[in-house]
């Protein structure tokens, strides 16, 4: 075309004009730490695996999840999911059902027989793990994947620790537990059951172990002094729950009183009910708000007909009869006796007052520091004794399966470094992402999907699992509720909203780049990124 001078121009030629020079601030991409990841005691990359679950790639999701935690099926049933309490979506409608999706993934893995990738090349190092509870199993799993040879010694007849001998099976079916443990053992981990470690140093020497991880849990039921008649039937909760796993079910009678306010108290009361008690009554010193048991567990128990006697202590136990004293809370919230007494009929009294650690295997080990009945460990999970690490209920911490699993993972990484004569430096944490950094308009309203619950009547008589799982469609739905806080989920907003086409889309999985030749620094991409994965920084002029 013989174009008229100046009036008629060639298409797209404004590329010659680099508007980037107008800019005083520039956008940069970054990853921020989502609150869920930050809250997970096992250090799961929750958002990372939800990302894959969202696209229906459950196996990939499961693989990313199990990089940190080998027990998604168990987690999906027993974890108290602090991630969900922290989840930003909670400020929008309700938190993402992270735990449900996790369970779905775990159950899918079992159903489909997914296996872990083969461990790294053998390091030739041998590690002894004492205790096949969640913490010990987690450490074993991670160490094995790192190429170490691992031997677990457990005093009990079956693996799982409190997951089997504490948590009732209506919450954690044993086939689930067995499946997830078996998968760890398949990595080549040796499990020696009925093998109580009497003295850790002896056992290490005997097996020529290079290091040890102790996770013996807390199994000794605490006793309160209650004057009792000879015929009073008093047992401790842990024994009751443990005997549930044996041939002879505990005999508790028709009217069972449980003393305590923790999750164990709830579990044992619900167990009693299932064993045929007409009345299962929890006696607790304080009020519902002060109860350490999780609210949802209390709620489920109440639904099942468990009764709770608040603000009461047990003063005296006699055959078929208890004497209770009423309490009231002082202004600090502590219960104080009132001097008012009452009686309550009871066939048995179950004490659920917490557990102590059996530290006898540490006799004579040098350098240890023990306080409040638990073993102190450093930031690297090592006890005061070189080469002996510990975790789970036996170290000072919150006593949950998930914390134990986290300890196991952390210890494994440090043991690995220690065996290699290096130190393990965890990657620096990203800056956290706050709800205010999100642009939530882009997420459509989608309240949480509730998991199906077993009918209350059936729950009172059977040990069937109370809480159902999500099916594929609602698991997908739930996964997709994730806002992807702080990390690009390739929504293309920045690419779309830039008035200057200054964002380069690199293609699936490759994210984006800024074209600073043209970016004018308006900040629109930052404002419209739904998940806060871009920020403005001053331009270095």
């Amino acid at each position, binding site marked *: *075309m013989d174009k*008229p*001078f100046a009036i*008629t121009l*060639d298409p797209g030629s404004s590329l010659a004009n680099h508007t980037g020079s107008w800019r005083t601030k520039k956008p940069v991409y970054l990853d921020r730490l989502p609150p869920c990841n930050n809250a997970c005691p096992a250090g799961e990359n929750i958002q990372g695996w939800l990302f894959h679950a969202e696209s229906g790639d459950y196996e990939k999701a499961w693989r990313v999840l199990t990089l940190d935690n080998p027990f998604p099926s168990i987690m999906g049933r027993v974890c108290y999911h602090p991630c969900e309490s922290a989840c930003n979506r909670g400020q929008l409608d309700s938190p993402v059902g992270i735990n449900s999706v996790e369970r779905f993934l775990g159950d899918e893995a079992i159903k489909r027989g997914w296996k872990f990738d083969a461990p790294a090349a053998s390091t030739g190092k041998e590690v002894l793990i004492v205790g096949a509870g969640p913490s010990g199993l987690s450490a074993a799993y991670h160490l094995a994947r790192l190429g170490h040879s691992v031997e677990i010694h457990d005093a009990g007849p079956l693996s799982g620790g409190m997951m089997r001998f504490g948590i009732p099976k209506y919450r954690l079916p044993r086939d689930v537990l067995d499946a997830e443990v078996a998968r760890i053992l398949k990595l080549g981990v040796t499990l020696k059951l009925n093998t109580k470690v009497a003295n850790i140093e002896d056992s290490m020497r005997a097996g020529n172990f290079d290091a040890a991880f102790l996770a013996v849990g807390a199994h000794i039921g605490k006793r309160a002094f209650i004057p009792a008649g000879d015929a009073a039937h008093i047992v401790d909760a842990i024994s009751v729950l443990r005997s549930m796993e044996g041939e002879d079910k505990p005999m508790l009678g028709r009217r069972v009183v449980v003393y305590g306010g923790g999750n164990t108290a709830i579990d044992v009361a619900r167990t009693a009910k299932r064993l045929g008690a007409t009345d299962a009554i929890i006696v607790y010193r304080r009020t519902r708000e002060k109860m350490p048991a999780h609210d949802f567990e209390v709620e489920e128990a109440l639904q099942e007909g468990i009764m709770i006697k608040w603000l009461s202590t047990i003063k005296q136990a006699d055959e078929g009869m208890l004497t209770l004293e009423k309490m009231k809370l002082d202004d600090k919230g502590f219960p104080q006796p009132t001097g008012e007494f009452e009686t309550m009929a009871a066939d048995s009294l179950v004490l659920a007052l917490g557990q102590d650690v059996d530290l006898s295997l540490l006799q004579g080990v040098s350098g240890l520091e023990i306080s409040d009945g638990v073993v102190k460990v450093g930031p690297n999970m090592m006890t005061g004794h070189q080469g002996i690490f510990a975790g789970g209920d036996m170290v000072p911490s919150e006593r949950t399966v998930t914390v134990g699993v986290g300890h196991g993972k952390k210890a494994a990484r440090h043991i690995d470094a220690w065996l290699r004569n290096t130190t393990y430096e965890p990657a620096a944490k990203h800056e956290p992402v706050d709800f205010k950094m999100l642009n939530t308009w882009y997420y459509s309203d989608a309240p949480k999907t509730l998991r199906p619950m077993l009918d209350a009547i059936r729950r009172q008589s059977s040990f069937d699992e109370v809480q159902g799982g999500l099916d594929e469609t609602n698991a997908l739905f739930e996964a997709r509720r994730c806002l992807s806080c702080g990390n690009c989920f390739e929504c293309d907003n920045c690419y779309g909203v830039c008035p200057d086409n200054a964002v380069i889309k690199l293609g699936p999985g490759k994210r984006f780049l800024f074209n600073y030749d043209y970016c004018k620094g308006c900040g629109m991409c930052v404002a419209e990124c739904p998940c806060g994965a871009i920020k403005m920084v001053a331009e270095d002029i």
Partner: protein
Amino acid sequence: MLKQIEGSRAVAEAIALCRPEVICAYPISPQTHIVEALGEMVKSEKLAPCEFINVESEFAAMSVAIGASATGARAYTATASQGLLFMVEAVYNASGLGLPIVMTVANRAIGAPINIWNDHSDSLSQRDSGWMQLFAETNQEALDLHIQAFKLAEELSLPVMVCMDGFILTHAYEQVDMPTQQQVDAYLQPYEPRQVLDPREPVSIGAMVGPEAFMEVRYLAHAKQMQALERIPQLAAEFKQIFGRDTGGLVHTYRAEDAETIVVAMGSVLGTIKDTVDEMRDDGHKIGVLGITSFRPFPLAQVRAALQNAKRVVVLEKSLAVGIGGILSTDVRMALSGLQLHGYTVVAGLGGRAITRKSLHKLFREAQQDTLQQLTFLDLDWDVVNKQLARERAVRRSGPAAENMLRDIGTVASKIA
């Protein structure tokens, strides 16, 4: 083929032979008959393929033509007077963008006072618009000029106005020789746009141009009109080869060879002038005529060549540059700069005032005797004018002049002989 036919109809048929592709029109007397005829031809599919668009204003008419032309279609419209002024912004735009639109201007006075009759104020108001302007003397010339206009416009990528006197030509039934389609096709090739909106080769037309290039763009528009000065006579010659007629060109002289007095004019009035000149020649006066066909580009050299041997020049024009006098005469004077000639400006026929042979005889004789005023208003009713002027001197708020004067004349009808 010879036909006795109305001027507008003749022009419409000639335009149809040029195979326009988009015609847009908005009615205004005295242009209406042209577009009505074209509309009918398109509707009856005698003229096809062609889109006839009834727009809502002249501004839209020119704008539609702009869009169509930029998309490579041969575009045509017609207007007059107020209509031309209403489209002015787009008129300038069409030429600025170099779009070869052809427009008939059925010349008519501009109000106020509103007046539907002929003079040249309308197209002359657009003399600097960048359009070429060709003035027809007869209906034959009007139709021939349209054929040439398309060729001229498209070769240079500049728009052309073909100006024909409203009513005098548009509504006159005269005999014309209507060319055949073969003749027109042989003369006028299909439109090959210089720039075109087409997804196959995208361009941006109509950029904003700043001080760094604006002068050059304007100069180039001027340069194109200078090229037209060469092309117009050639096109006329080529036209003659095919159609056998002398039409177009830049200027025409009539009995001017030895003339001492040459009358310069444009349009149909040249007929009356020539008749008068013939009579004066018969009486032995050395008087001749210079008709200007191409008002834009203005053929300075040809005008000078035609006039330089005369003693005096009378420019008779149907337009008035209020506050100075003539419009055409200013251009003619420029052609004559440096020559020692008597020059007279005669403003005549405004708003359809008849220009009679009688008045011309008187006028030309006065000119020959050099008793003519430098600026003369032909057949002006001084009585009326003086009364109004007196009134205005006496009373500051003397009311609308036109109404006052009509009252003085005692008529509401305009003076047409």
